[in-house]
């Protein structure tokens, strides 16, 4: 796994640092579900997830748009509170986000390694001349 805070240990406004703060709050902060359970659902370790949660976690992780009223109602019926379902929902979602963050940062790291070990190819001259992106109407207001 790529370190989440690669070169920005002293910059608490770097996106990697801000994500690390969020991750800590959601997975390790005070909550109505044990931190261990939040970690398990965030990493979608389905073998370790209780039976009644397994379908919900899987739906959330792979195709959340298919989640249903019944899935949430079933969790509440077997004894999870709304607060707990909220925490677990956020933890699963964050895990899906982190999966993309890790994959993207790993790809950047592998590109760096390849650049260091392979002959450098010149960047097209026009690349430096791409126009700065447009200014928004509202942002200027």
């Amino acid at each position: 796994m790529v370190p989440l805070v690669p070169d920005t240990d002293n910059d608490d406004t770097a996106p990697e640092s801000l994500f690390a703060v969020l991750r800590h709050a959601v997975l390790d902060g005070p909550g109505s579900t044990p931190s261990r359970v939040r970690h398990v659902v965030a990493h979608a370790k389905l073998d370790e997830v209780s039976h009644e949660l397994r379908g919900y976690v899987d739906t959330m992780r792979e195709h959340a748009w298919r989640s249903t009223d019944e899935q949430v109602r079933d969790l509440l019926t077997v004894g999870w509170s709304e607060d707990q379902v909220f925490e677990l929902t956020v933890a699963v979602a964050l895990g899906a986000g982190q999966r993309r963050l890790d994959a993207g940062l790993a790809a950047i790291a592998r590109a760096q390694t390849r650049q260091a070990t392979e002959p450098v190819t010149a960047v097209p001259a026009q690349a430096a001349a791409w126009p700065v992106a447009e200014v928004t109407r509202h942002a200027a207001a």
Partner: protein
Amino acid sequence: MRLPSLSRSWRFSDRVKLKMIRIASGRPPADILKILHYRREFFGEPFTAWVHQVLRGPSEWSIGERELMATFVSNLNECRFCAGSHGAIVDATLGPELTAAVLADWRTAPLRAPLRAAFALLETLTLQPGEVGPELVEAAYEHGVTEQGVRDVVHVCAIFCTINRIADAVDFAIPDDKGFQGDAYQLLKRGYAIS
């Protein structure tokens, strides 16, 4: 919303704030605001600090371009609420024609080359994160995107792969066009941070 108690348990100052939003806008606050203010230390505060930095902080991508990325990822994840919310911001900044063109087919949409390379990365990272290799990053570099620019793209993807799932799991109500436009104006004016 599937977890109705999340609409009732806010700190006093947030209840006042959301009441003011209701009065000013003439409609109930969007469900996303209810979620972000529910136990805000757990999720809303740290999440919006991250979002604000990525979508409004310094970047080689314009605000409109980052919002277009957000719309694209949300559309891939089939999240109607987020695609509509951020699409309305793109409509207001880059124009509705570009939003429609990108959602129809980003490969043929009139995008500058660095942005097109970003969309190639976003598509694979969103749908098949295990398939993302250095080639997509190097392709972006070849079109002039810096390493920080690629990092920004990765963070936009991570943010929306998170919030899209929450929006759909909790079943956020979908505003009408006027509602989306009003929210877009506020998000352009004020940004995302709630603290």
